């Protein structure tokens, strides 16, 4: 983590505790997680106690207190994908990567998450890897998709 970069992110929000969530979102998108040092800095600059920051960091799904893998595998489990077989896709991804939803493997290769609808219901079931959407996925395709990512 680049301490200077974190300062740059926090700077415009100084003394504005109501914008805490926006600051954390900015840090999350920069670092891919919320490192402790960045949170302490935020606490100091925005004048918000650490306890509240941790409350928010654990309440909202967008935040992670542990580093994430290089590739983010998002399995859509929205209702449309669910009825088209998303649970079986999730099961296959778990079998293949050895990690479940919300987890990251030890080599920091994959982070697997479930998401509630990414709005491509016509393509369901859908897997989104690093922002690229793979549609109409069958259990048989899953291994081929994951193999594309090193």
């Amino acid at each position: 983590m680049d301490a200077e970069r974190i300062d740059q992110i926090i700077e415009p929000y100084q003394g504005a505790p109501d914008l805490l969530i926006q600051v954390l979102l900015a840090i999350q998108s920069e670092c891919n997680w919320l490192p402790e040092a960045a949170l302490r800095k935020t606490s100091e600059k925005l004048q918000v106690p650490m306890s509240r920051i941790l409350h928010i960091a654990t309440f909202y799904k967008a935040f992670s207190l542990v580093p994430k893998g290089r590739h983010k595998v998002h399995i859509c489990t929205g209702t449309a994908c669910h009825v088209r077989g998303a649970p079986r896709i999730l099961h296959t991804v778990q079998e293949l990567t050895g990690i479940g939803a919300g987890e990251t493997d030890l080599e920091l290769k994959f982070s697997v998450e479930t998401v509630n609808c990414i709005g491509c219901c016509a393509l369901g079931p859908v897997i989104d890897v690093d922002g690229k959407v793979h549609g109409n996925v069958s259990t048989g395709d899953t291994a081929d998709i994951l193999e594309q990512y090193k």
Partner: protein
Amino acid sequence: MPQLRSPDQLDAFRQELSSSGDADTPCISVCAGTGCLAYGADQVIRAFEAEIGKQGLAATVNTKGTGCPGYCEKGPVVVIYPEEICYLGVKPEDVPEIVTRTIVEKKVVARLVYSDPDSGEQAIRESDIPFYKHQERFLLSSNTRIDSKSIDDYLAIGGYTALSKALFRMTAVEVVEEVKKSNLRGRGGGGFPAGRKWEGSRDAPEEVKYVLVNADEGDPGAFMDRALLEGNPHSILEGLIIGGYAIGAHEGYVYVRQEYPLAVENIALAIRHAEEYGLLGENILGSGFDFKVMVHQGAGAFVCGESTALMTALEGRAGEPRPKYVRSNVKGLWNRPSVLNNVETWANVPLIINKGADWFTGYGTEGSKGTKIFSLVGKIANTGLVEVPMGITLRDIVYKIGGGIPGGKKFKAVQTGGPSGGCIPERLLDLEVGFDELTEAGSMMGSGGMIVMDEDTCMVDVARYFLHFLSDESCGKCVPCREGLRQMDRILKNITEGKGQDGDIETLEDLSELAMDASLCALGKSAPNPLLSTLRYFRDEYEAHIKEKRCPSLLCKDLVKYYIDPEKCSACLICLRKCPEGGVVGAKNMIHVIDHEKCTSCGVCFDVCPDRFDAVVKYSGEPVPPPIPEEQRMIDRKKKKDHEQSPSAN
């Protein structure tokens, strides 16, 4: 960059915009919504730009990436104006042909237009396609006509006329009265009349008030608000400014999910453009009315779609709801009067101001007026966004617009209202769509998700899915929701795993009653709806799971066993290779059998078995036949080939 300081300047500028664009200039609009982008629409747009440059047409043809036209099933969708020719499923390699044939020679590329799956009849114009023909698209129709990143496009089609009318030709009271008269009800789920909400805020004594846009569209399987925000952000902004004027607020917030990056980008851009043009900020159009808008990104919590939780989140805290002894339109954000409406509700406001409440009430039923956008998804032939007048029957939506169920399967239910809604069975398909009608049937309007389910969908699994979702999203503040939903989820999970017991249904009903009576906010109060509605209409499925340990839809993993039919298996090795557990035993020329010690019932073998063999069979509630003895597994190819060829030789 013009700073517009009076309504006359706005009109003059609009004149200038529409006269500069010749109506006959061809315009290629390519859907750049999330669904079409996933199909590769960005490559199609680039291909058009390249091809038009190559053919030297850049000066005379306009290419636009627009918002979602709704027909996601057939993406990427390309519409060519002024003829309104609609091409479906366009690929980059089709582009040169389209440019040469349609743009230059003014002819239609027949293979890319809609053709009816049954009759083969073709429809060239968008409005002739059955999917669109039965809709009333007041909100969505602008999406394909404008570049969502251009305020000029929005102005050219009459944007901000409603704002100018409200500011200069109507008093704030008249605006509220007009909205009240239109009986516009909240599109986010509750269906509370917007006009009454506005009136309460306007009459509240506090000086500082707020207007808020709820764009925290968290319902799984719903993306109406996103399509509007991405495709036509100015329509929402215009509605919001009018709302601010009506209740006397000078600040507005748009609360939008960070999971919708394009929506965040487009609304932020729209705000910046409106400020530059003098349509936002101080002294809007010289009227003396000041108004500013901020964007706040949500960080991923379903409960933040609830009004009080959303306001808490806007204040920078964890989004937990509070009891509503005093309504938030009187004491809301920072304890000040705050009008919170859904994206779609705000988008309706400019239409009502422009065309009048009487026009709006001309559509719909007694209690529900105007149109509603639904996202029609699931087991349906035409997935997409549909905007229909209230009062249309579910049957018309599913069959006339949606094109029925694909793959010759049988319709089972349609789920409306998201996780707080319920499942409506086939016998109620003639139900008219409206707030009160759907509530009576045990479901609700919700924000507009409409998920179609066929015979392969297990209703117990659907109920478990929603309860699991809600128990996961419960903020944990009140006990009935936090603990009650968790127990309900656990019991339902047991039932789907074949561990259901007598009395489970009764316990679920008790817990439902408690959650509905005692939860703090609508999340807990409405959480039992998916369970109760499926119990009401599909009780037999629950009983089959509990008593016979059988899943009638052959879906619940723990109740289904797979079996390879030796008569049909051709020993093609596909399932053997794809099985992640190594649970298929066999070899070349040797009929495959499943080793049930290793099988996890993942269903890969069922999915990959080619249709021409169709050898993998599911069993539930009955024993799987024993595998055929090893000595009978060899296939004599020659014999089999002769056998297969004999019928065709006849």
